[in-house]
């Protein structure tokens, strides 16, 4: 998943496919503006694009393997963004705008402590080596039951799934939660915990496997 705060760059596949691509004007402008450092949001802003358009477009390009999210070593990060260890970035308008802004950084915290929070839903619960059943149906049945069943339950299930990072949803490789087999299992514990976190966030209840 890409966030608005990611610095993006064109993938090697972009150079291979560039001559065959048919894109809209603003999509080319976005792709050609990527420098690996400026955040997706900032590039979008400079092109007059709103956040939803930027995310939708970036997700699509990611899926087509035309772009990648840039990751940094600690030394690269501190050098590129002019951050001293233990301090917030000197300018809030760098590529980590929003992540590293002083208002969101705890006093004295290492800059790494916030850069690691990029995927809170997936990372907030530790992944056990052995854990609960990964069967999806009982979890979704729980959501539907907890919210009163019927259409209300379906809406609650939808809202829970919106909380799950998209790569984890993709990894489930299912087309609909309504037609899953009783024995269908989530691909990993990360997906399980993301759904459980989603349930907590949407329904304010803790899921406990039967």
């Amino acid at each position: 998943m890409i966030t608005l705060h990611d610095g993006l760059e064109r993938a090697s596949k972009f150079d291979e496919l560039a001559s065959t691509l048919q894109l809209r004007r603003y999509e080319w402008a976005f792709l050609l503006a990527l420098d690996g450092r400026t955040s997706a949001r900032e590039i979008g802003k400079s092109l007059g694009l709103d956040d939803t358009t930027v995310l939708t477009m970036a997700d699509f390009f990611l899926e087509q393997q035309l772009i990648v999210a840039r990751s940094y070593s600690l030394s690269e990060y501190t050098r590129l963004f002019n951050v001293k260890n233990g301090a917030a970035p000197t300018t809030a308008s760098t590529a980590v705008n929003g992540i590293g802004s002083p208002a969101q950084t705890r006093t004295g915290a290492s800059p790494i402590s916030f850069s690691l929070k990029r995927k809170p839903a997936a990372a907030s619960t530790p992944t056990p080596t052995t854990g609960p059943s990964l069967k999806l149906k009982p979890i979704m049945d729980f959501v539907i039951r907890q919210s009163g069943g019927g259409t209300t339950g379906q809406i609650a299930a939808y809202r829970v799934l919106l909380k799950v990072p998209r790569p984890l949803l993709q990894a489930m490789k299912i087309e609909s939660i309504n037609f899953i087999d009783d024995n269908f299992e989530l691909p990993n514990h990360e997906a399980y915990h993301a759904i459980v976190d989603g349930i907590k966030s949407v329904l304010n209840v803790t899921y406990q496997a039967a």
Partner: protein
Amino acid sequence: MTDKDLKVFIDIICHYFEKTTRHAPELKEPVIELNQFRLLDYTGFIKISGNNQGWVYISMPKGMLLDVLNCMGESLSDRSILLDSVGEIVSIITSNAREHFGAQFQISVPVTSAGKENAPISHEMPRFLLPFSWREHQAYVGIALLA
């Protein structure tokens, strides 16, 4: 999205078809769709911004669109009028929803697609589908709202 929001869309879909074709649609059990898009022959998408963000779309088979046009007295049946019509239908359904969602429910001009190509939404975003039947046809409205 809440029950009330969903009911608004259901009522508007029913009202639209009843008023323009004099045939009421029948709503089916909603479906949550992930990953692969199931788009029918013609689809109209509306991007939502403002307080709610996301997309609303309607996907219909060609035969249904032709029947709808016929009910409305339209004699054209080429690809261009079918794309225009599916865009106008989703635009009307979504715009009517502003009575419930308010002026901050901002609506774009429609984007249309024939078949499975050119869907402007990322298929990674879960969609809430409202399948319905109208006369002998099956179609659906998809709602992908983040709020």
